[in-house]
């Protein structure tokens, strides 16, 4: 795995350099190069993430006091729907695979591109068209959708707001996700370089591989579901309409058949990033390589069996509640296996608390809290008590934001030098991290408690006794927001003013670090041959 930095860096800007032919924008939006596509995704997805953050802050600001504060009830419904739709479909689902998967997965397996580069570009176009459709839905038809990101019938088929266009947007975005999934599965199978055996595959690639399978096998169900909502609104086929003999609970089944596996589409790539970062900054071979790799596949499999736990209070049969509750506990096992192996990787390691490592450690803790909350929700009895309360909101923000979100930030800080060839300020990043973690805990722990006390989710107004915890949650959101602002500002400064980054600042052993920073235009001049695993750090003796 020792290849000298590629020679194609005459212009030190590598793949970022313009060829000077035609408009610069076209060189990007019509490029089939996986690195450029990854960077396109980075800009788009980060933009939508920031939009989602602003909407989230607005929701919290509205809830700082009972009664109307800064917006009316209809606007509030639209705002939380948008927050959900943007964060789920435009940020968390595509986030890590589309950006870092595209940028680094082919390189990590020693390939020059993904298996279907043009299809990859088509995925990005689908993403952009879907995203623009979603944005258009806000300003057209009967106003922004107000159903929540779940589009539950019968409300979604009856509301005057522009749900139809939003479902079209989701359908197109689903297509983008499927195409990326197909591309990644084939890439991992067909394009591994010489010596890159399955047991030498970086764990990030393993995670993306498991994710891609879920994308392929689960996303189409979402497609047909939103298509039926669309058909219901336009021609009234009546498949979920109780007046026509339909069963609204079947909508929930179909929706969650996709959307539960989808939470693993969201979290698995984050777990992959963590598995990549921890060994590098602990200077130790990862503990339990196979356990981590296989538990990813186990999560993908078991994650398809548990969708009913979103529906305990829907009027589903008691037998189903029992079965789904039982199955839900099974999915905790592979997740726990991962956590144990990460902790064991840290044990007796030579740990450096660089920013990527800090975000990874936050991931482990926040994700574990969220996971344990998940067990409470998976147990049918407690779920009936806390169903549709802020406890649930707290839970999925712990796993999705504390998990995937922090995994995303870890990836951003880990690969930033490789992407842009520049360094950010580590002190500022660490400061931002402190703000983010503390704001996060204040915000979402307040939500957990107020949920246990019985405050329902998605409500515009609340009883006065919930005021204190809502105030603390809102204050937490400000701390978190400040941390995020600092983090992004620091990265932007690094992007334009940062000092040049060396080829391998973290002394990592995966293939992308054998190339120059920023990445060269052509990944590998000649075929590389891999002779050892991705976590063999030679300055420490293997334990």
């Amino acid at each position, binding site marked *: 795995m020792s290849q000298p930095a590629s020679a194609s860096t005459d212009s030190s800007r590598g793949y970022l350099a313009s060829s000077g032919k035609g408009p610069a924008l076209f060189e990007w939006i019509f490029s089939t190069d996986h690195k450029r596509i990854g960077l396109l995704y980075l800009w788009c997805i980060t933009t939508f993430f920031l939009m989602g953050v602003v909407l989230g802050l607005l929701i919290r600001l509205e809830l700082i006091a009972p009664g109307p504060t800064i917006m009316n009830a209809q606007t509030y419904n639209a705002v939380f729907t948008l927050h959900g739709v943007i964060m789920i479909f435009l940020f968390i689902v595509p986030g890590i695979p589309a950006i870092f998967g595209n940028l680094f997965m082919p390189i990590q397996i020693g390939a020059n591109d993904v298996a279907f580069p043009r299809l990859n570009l088509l995925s990005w176009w689908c993403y952009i068209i879907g995203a623009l459709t979603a944005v258009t839905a806000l300003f057209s038809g009967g106003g922004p959708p107000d159903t929540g990101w779940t589009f539950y019938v019968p409300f979604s088929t009856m509301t005057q707001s522009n749900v139809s266009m939003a479902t079209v947007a989701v359908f197109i975005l689903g297509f983008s996700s499927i195409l990326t999934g197909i591309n990644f599965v084939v890439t991992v*199978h*067909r394009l591994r370089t010489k010596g890159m055996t399955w047991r030498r595959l970086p764990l990030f690639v393993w995670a993306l591989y498991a994710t891609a399978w879920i994308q392929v*096998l689960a996303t189409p*169900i979402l497609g047909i579901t939103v298509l039926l909502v669309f058909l219901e609104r336009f021609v009234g086929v009546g498949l979920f309409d109780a007046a026509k003999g339909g069963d609204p*609970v*079947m909508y929930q*089944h179909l929706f969650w*058949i996709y959307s539960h596996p989808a939470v693993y589409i969201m979290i698995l790539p984050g777990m992959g990033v963590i598995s990549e970062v921890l060994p590098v900054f602990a200077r130790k071979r990862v503990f339990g390589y196979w356990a981590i790799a296989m538990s990813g596949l186990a999560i993908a499999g078991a994650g*398809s*069996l548990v*969708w*009913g736990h979103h529906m305990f209070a829907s009027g*589903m*049969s*008691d*037998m*189903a509640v029992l*079965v*789904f509750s039982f199955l839900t506990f099974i999915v905790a096992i592979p997740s726990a296996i991962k956590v144990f192996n990460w902790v064991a990787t840290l044990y007796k390691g030579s740990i450096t608390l660089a920013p990527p490592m800090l975000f990874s450690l936050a991931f482990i803790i926040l994700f574990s809290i969220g996971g344990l909350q998940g067990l409470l929700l998976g147990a049918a009895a407690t779920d009936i008590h806390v169903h549709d309360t802020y406890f649930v909101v707290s839970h999925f923000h712990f796993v999705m934001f504390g998990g995937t979100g922090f995994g995303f930030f870890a990836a951003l800080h880990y690969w930033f030098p490789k992407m842009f060839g520049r360094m950010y300020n580590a002190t500022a990043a660490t400061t931002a991290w402190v703000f983010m973690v503390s704001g996060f805990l204040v915000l979402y722990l307040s939500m957990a408690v107020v949920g246990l006390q019985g405050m329902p989710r998605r409500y515009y107004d609340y009883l006065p006794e919930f005021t204190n915890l809502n105030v603390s949650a809102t204050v937490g959101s400000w701390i978190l927001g400040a941390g995020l602002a600092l983090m992004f500002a620091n990265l932007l400064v690094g992007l334009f003013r940062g000092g040049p980054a060396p080829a391998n600042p973290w002394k990592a052993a995966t293939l992308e670090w054998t190339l120059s920073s920023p990445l060269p235009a052509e990944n590998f001049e000649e075929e590389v041959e891999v002779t050892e695993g991705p976590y063999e750090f030679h300055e420490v003796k293997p334990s």
Partner: protein
Amino acid sequence: MSTEETHKIVPYRTFITVWIGLLALTVITVLASWIDLGALNVWLALAIASVKCSLVIAWFMHLKYENRFLKLIFLITLITLAVFIGLTFVDVLYR
């Protein structure tokens, strides 16, 4: 992974035989629907449809001649489908 492409050229005769089989099964499934077997009718129709599908998949779609890996992932997809349907019925049948 053992993925060497199968360049086997399937003779026309094989395809035509399969096609005649499919037509025969279509006739059988129509005839079977005229006999009243109660709930069994649906299962019989599904069984015949499954046989027809297997013919199409194995010969027309070449799966018979593909490597084990493609067969395996096809099987995984079928299992996934069975799980989706089965777990939905855990709800529907016990309501």
